[in-house]
């Protein structure tokens, strides 16, 4: 797959994703608060590069280990990254001009998913506890 372009609503922040891409959907309450609903994230094997509007991009530290990037001008919710790997951005599907045929890798925090929606795919559903265990985190620090 070649480069995929992305931007916020107002266009101040521009990004490019490179490599193969897949989707991961997070249902945790923190993502719901931030995006307004589930997070439909896109990950690229060769990463995401912000190519314009670094100064318009604000980072909010949402937990001890991660932060979330949004456009200061229009408020678009765009990126997630862990503090130990600040160059490795995970993007939001809505920010990118997604090509057809992307696979959904997993659904995270399925035990926090509200009843009002569901998705049709049969990708693996993992609980918050399973996600936290995978990354060696304790349940107390549940917010991601």
């Amino acid at each position, binding site marked *: 797959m070649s480069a995929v372009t992305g931007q916020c609503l107002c266009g101040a922040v521009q990004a490019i994703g490179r490599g193969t891409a897949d989707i991961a959907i997070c249902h945790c309450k923190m993502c719901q608060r931030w995006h307004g*609903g589930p997070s439909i994230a896109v990950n690229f094997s060769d990463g995401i590069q912000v190519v314009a509007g670094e100064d318009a991009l604000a980072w909010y530290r949402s937990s001890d280990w991660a932060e979330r990037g949004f456009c200061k001008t229009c408020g678009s919710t765009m990126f997630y990254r862990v503090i130990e790997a600040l160059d490795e951005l995970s993007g939001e599907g*809505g920010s990118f001009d997604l090509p057809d045929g992307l696979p959904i890798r997993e659904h995270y925090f399925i035990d926090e998913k509200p009843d*009002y929606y569901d998705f049709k795919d049969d990708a693996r559903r993992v609980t918050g506890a399973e996600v936290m265990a995978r990354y060696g985190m304790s349940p107390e620090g549940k917010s991601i």
Partner: protein
Amino acid sequence: MTKPMTGRCMCGAVTYKTEGAPSAAHACHCDDCQRFSGAAFVGVDFEAIEIDGPIKWFQSSDWGERGSCGTCGSAMFWRLRDGNGPNVAAIGSLDDASKITAIDKHYFADNIPPAYAFSGDAVRLSREETLAFFEGMTDD
């Protein structure tokens, strides 16, 4: 009088209280909603929303504006600039949305990326049908 619903952003700096008794949510899949919220904007209509905290409004079209938290960036609200339409809160920002059990309408459904699909048999309005639907509301 219906009990108000409450909500807040991710960091808690922006809080709000609503008036009105919605029973369902609607999902908008237009380009602007996807850019703003990162995917579909699933909203709930209220007659009024009383907001407290560092809310930041961005005018996203001639007729609409979007509200987000100035501190953490949470994508929270949509409203008409002239104040005559519903006040829409993102369902994820509500403290307790358990009484809202379904999405009853998908707007701009022909713009949903093929990467994911919501289940359920809620009506799917195309771009054309969505615009006609709102045009009809304006005419009333």
